[in-house]
């Protein structure tokens, strides 16, 4: 996977910066340039999430995506942040202890290596809170 294409939103991935619409008071992560509810009438501003949240659902990946082979088995989950939006991330935890509804908090980690030129990239994973 050529991750190098996705450098534009690196800062958002490092710092969990999404968007808040002050028109409808909804929070978005990943960040958006257009509020899906208010569309052109939305008033968007960057918003930094503290990252506290809970597990909506998860899986333990045994057959990895390219570039993630050395990490198997790894836990992939949808995390619902307390402010509202949900995101997809890896959970650094014992797969056997994973539970839906479990509280988690963010950590800054290496995400993986791009298949192109072995580039390492970083972002936010989560751990049990």
């Amino acid at each position, binding site marked *: 996977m050529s991750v190098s294409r996705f450098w534009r939103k690196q800062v958002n991935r490092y710092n969990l910066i999404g968007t808040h619409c002050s028109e409808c008071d909804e929070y978005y992560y990943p960040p958006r340039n257009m509020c899906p509810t208010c569309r052109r009438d939305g008033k968007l501003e960057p918003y930094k999430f503290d990252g506290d949240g809970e597990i909506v659902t998860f899986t333990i990946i045994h057959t990895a995506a*390219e570039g993630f082979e050395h990490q198997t088995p790894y836990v992939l989950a949808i995390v619902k942040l307390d402010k509202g939006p949900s995101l997809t991330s890896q959970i650094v935890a014992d797969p056997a202890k994973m539970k839906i509804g479990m509280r988690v908090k963010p950590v800054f980690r290496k995400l993986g290596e791009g298949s192109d030129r072995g580039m390492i990239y970083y972002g936010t994973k989560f751990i049990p809170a």
Partner: protein
Amino acid sequence: MRDVAIIGVKNTNFGEMWERSLRDIFVEAGVGALKDAGVAGENIGAMYVGNMSSGQFVDQEHVGALIADYSGLARNLHVPATRVEAACASGGLALRQGIMAVASGYEDIVVAAGVEKMTDISSSSASTALAAAADREWEGIMGATFPGLYAMIAKMHMDKYGTTSEQLAEVAIKNHFNGSMNPIAQYKNKISVEAVLRSIMVADPLHIFDCSPISDGASALVLAPADIAHKYTDTPIYIKATAQASDTIALHDRRDITTLDATVFAAKNAYKMAKLTPADIDLVEVHDCFTIAEICAIEDLGFAKKGQGGKVTQEGETAIGGRIPVNTSGGLKACGHPVGATGIKQAVEITQQLRGEAGKRQVDGAEIGMTHNVGGSGATAVIHILSRNR
């Protein structure tokens, strides 16, 4: 708007065909469908070709023109050919484009087809290519795979409704059983619950036997205005509805992880257009890219209450001879899933069933059938209702 009918159909064999190229398999399907319809190249007004990712799978883009050329429709006849893409729903969208072209009166005879050649690259590269159907920047980058996304749907379905691994396995068992009666199917072996549960874990709780495979294959059909369909065939199959809907590209943004709102919305429109209800449908081909996907589909299409999809499957209601036979072709699971071809293959299967030509898998007295084709983890859904009667 004009009524539209299917007058000819053809599937190639599905599976790994290392000795045959993308254009080889497409030409077999296209020529077969034209022959079935008794239509000559000179009659064709346009072609629509569903293809998800020949760029990634065989390093070839501009597939519409390529296929028109190798089907003998380009150099002298200059038939316009349009590639249509919506990930695994590309075929269903090609059918919908073809129907709209004929219904509008712009074209008379139209070929709607789909093709994918997935086995020329390693299966891990194919998985990476398929992951482009999800949100690469916010799902793929975190290590999400397609089996992984559907596994998260399954996990939540189990948690919320008590669906079991055995119930998931029953979907695969039924579809392998149906596939064993389909000459074109990739897998014709019957499997047991134990075999599914013992098979390699891909993304918990989905085993390899919960997954559709990586496949090569092509499917084609010929559309005509209903008013002239009888010129070509004694059993035209009429399009009663075509509907399509979108949802968020990423699974994490959905209203409910266990419901494909795009399916619900498209189904609502399809039933309304056809003036029918789920009880009127005699059989359905649903998008079972993973066993959990079939369970969600029969719920979201109105054939089972939300949460009951696993239970009705286990009770045999979706088997041939049951209340609502699902995936008589073997589905994506056993028939195979050459992604761009799948949506067309579903319509070919329903056409053969409604004509009474489905051999050992024939559903007795089938009059009305449905196809349900999904792109990604549910960002696109396209539904068609087909009938023997106009």
